[in-house]
């Protein structure tokens, strides 16, 4: 816990909070200023908007500890504010609220627009309010209310203040804190029990949410390539981020799959089962794993089919890699970034297979090359197999 001293609604306040406590939780839970509402808690909905050093800021993604010494104004502190008083009357008149949940943040943002916009241009007001979501009104009344206040003030010759009155550089609310910090936390130890189904030895079938297809040619005869796919440890060594634990059997392997996308990282632990059909020269590796830290789970499968080329001297490998991600890591709305990571991992897997077949060490490409891929150092250390698909799924998003 840190002691945080700051000014809230023109009153000096001191209270303790954890470093992870948001400014919104700080004013609501420590100071009972519950007019600040929390909606999305990741900076999208705008319900938590407050004034920080006089300008709007998201209190849900601003940590209280970062506001040491700052000047915070919540909706409660705007009771006597001239602009907000005019806005409240206009909101009432124009029926600019229904349930009222968005209203505190809406008023803070509206006040900022009234101060800054030169005139009551509807488009600019709508764009200016686009960071505050209202699910009741359809915005028509809100926009009208803001327009009417701007018109009235400009008619009274009150000039706009394009910069909102801010004169210094840097993040609003920063700059007045003395150096300091929290007590170091003991390192977290994460126990990672295997998921129930894995513990029971069950690896269920599933329908992948995302499937990536890739085919490539190996300059090796069909039989040799098919035999290689039966070498679980060998295949695993080609999978970026995968390491095996224990001794793989021909039907079942256990291990870990590590993946990283920027600052997001996860280590999925689980198991995979292996199927193959010599008649069709095809097979499937099907896996399941969980990342304890993020409470996320993934399922994945690698399907392969081999086709002869050049009279059997070379082999076309058709890979179809599918995965599904659930839990925390799945909730981020940036599937494109995950797909891109998956694509790169698949490409790397293919390149590694080729190298492996050619008798090169199963090591990865040169570190220099890897360093500009998202896979980086975890991958370098990694070896064995496991669900490739889980690899792809893990990166989460945004």
């Amino acid at each position, binding site marked *: 816990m840190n002691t945080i001293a700051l000014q809230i609604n023109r009153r000096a306040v001191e209270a303790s909070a954890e*470093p992870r406590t948001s400014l919104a939780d700080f004013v609501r839970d420590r100071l009972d200023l519950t007019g600040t509402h929390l909606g999305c808690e990741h900076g999208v909905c705008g319900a938590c908007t407050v004034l920080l050093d006089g300008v709007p800021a998201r209190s*849900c993604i601003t940590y209280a*500890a970062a506001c040491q010494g700052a000047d915070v104004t919540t909706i409660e502190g705007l009771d006597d504010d001239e602009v907000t008083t005019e806005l409240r009357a206009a909101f009432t008149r124009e029926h600019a609220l229904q349930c009222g949940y968005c209203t505190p943040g809406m008023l803070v943002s509206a006040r900022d627009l009234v101060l800054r916009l030169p005139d009551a241009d509807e488009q600019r007001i*709508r764009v200016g309010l686009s960071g505050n979501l209202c699910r009741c009104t359809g915005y028509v009344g809100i926009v009208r209310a803001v327009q009417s206040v701007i018109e009235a003030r400009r008619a009274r010759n009150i000039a706009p203040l394009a910069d909102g009155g801010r004169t210094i550089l840097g993040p609003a609310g920063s*700059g007045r804190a003395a150096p300091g910090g929290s007590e170091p936390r003991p390192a977290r130890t994460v126990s990672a029990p295997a998921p129930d189904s894995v513990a029971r030895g069950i690896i269920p079938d599933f329908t992948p949410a995302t499937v990536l297809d890739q085919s490539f040619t190996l300059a090796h005869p069909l039989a040799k390539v098919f035999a290689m796919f039966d070498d679980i440890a060998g295949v695993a060594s080609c999978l970026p981020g995968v390491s095996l634990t224990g001794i793989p059997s021909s039907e079942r392997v256990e291990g870990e799959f590590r993946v990283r996308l920027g600052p997001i990282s996860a280590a999925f632990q689980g198991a995979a089962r292996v199927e193959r059909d010599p008649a069709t020269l095809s097979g499937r590796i099907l896996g399941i794993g969980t990342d304890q830290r993020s409470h996320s789970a993934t399922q994945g499968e690698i399907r392969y089919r081999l086709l002869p080329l050049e009279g059997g001297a070379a082999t076309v490998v058709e890979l179809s890699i599918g995965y599904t991600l659930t839990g925390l890591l799945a909730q981020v709305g940036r599937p494109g*970034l995950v797909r891109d990571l998956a694509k790169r991992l698949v490409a790397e897997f293919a390149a590694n297979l080729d190298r492996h077949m050619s008798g090169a060490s199963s090591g990865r490409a040169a570190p220099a090359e890897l360093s500009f891929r998202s896979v980086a150092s975890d991958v370098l250390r990694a070896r064995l197999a496991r669900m490739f698909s889980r690899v792809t799924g893990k990166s989460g998003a945004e």
Partner: protein
Amino acid sequence: MKPAPFAYERPRDLDAALSLLAASRGSTKIIAGGQSLGPMLNLRLVQPELIVDISGLAELKLAQVSGNELVLGALVTHADIEDGRTADVTRGAMRNVAANIAYRAVRNRGTIGGSLSHADPAADWVSALAALGARVKLRTLAGARTLAVEAFVVGALEPALHVGEIVEAIHVPTRTASSHWGYAKSCRKTGEFARAIGAVLVDPADASARVVIGAIDTAPIVVTDARELFGGQIAADYKQRFDVRVADALLAKAGIDDAAQRHIHVSVLKRAVLEAAA
């Protein structure tokens, strides 16, 4: 939607921040305005053991014209640029980009250095600064180095930062009087992450052009010599010469398999070209 617990340090100066970074075992994150990291912390996508808050460091809040370029400290916010609290050597280009980043409440805390460090392909500065030919100054305890923005962003969320290194400043070259600037983006909702970004800096006077196709799922496509996109030469009629097929081919080469996606990117780039020529 609360972050996992973390320890928190507010260093007294840049060297102290760098020392903390250097001493960490890797599970340390720098936070400036927190407008990208905050959501990821709250969603527990990122669970660092230590957060080093640099938002108070005065030495990163400088903005000054030095020779032929503007040097912006990493902590300069989008709103600082939008409002003109910093000098502008880009003849309004950066102010317009800044004014359309996310929402005002985000721009009041979000920083240019933080946005670049986060290296989200859909972020505006990643594309706009690459088109403007800006460079990033990076610092460790051992010293400093400078990279072109297009070399700094190496993949989605993947900056070229070494362990213990942070973005100190952004160097923006003065835009020539004869150059034309165009910037366009497509967002499903105002202020949301862009699904396509086009940025062009064309100078018909010296027959040069830089073109960026951004907000793809990886680092943006940066064409520093964009003659090919304009039929082999840059002249006053570059608007008419803009070749959508070359743009489409660039996107296909970058791995954008979906023709509809390529169409969106090409259309947005074309909008940027038209804006530059307007």
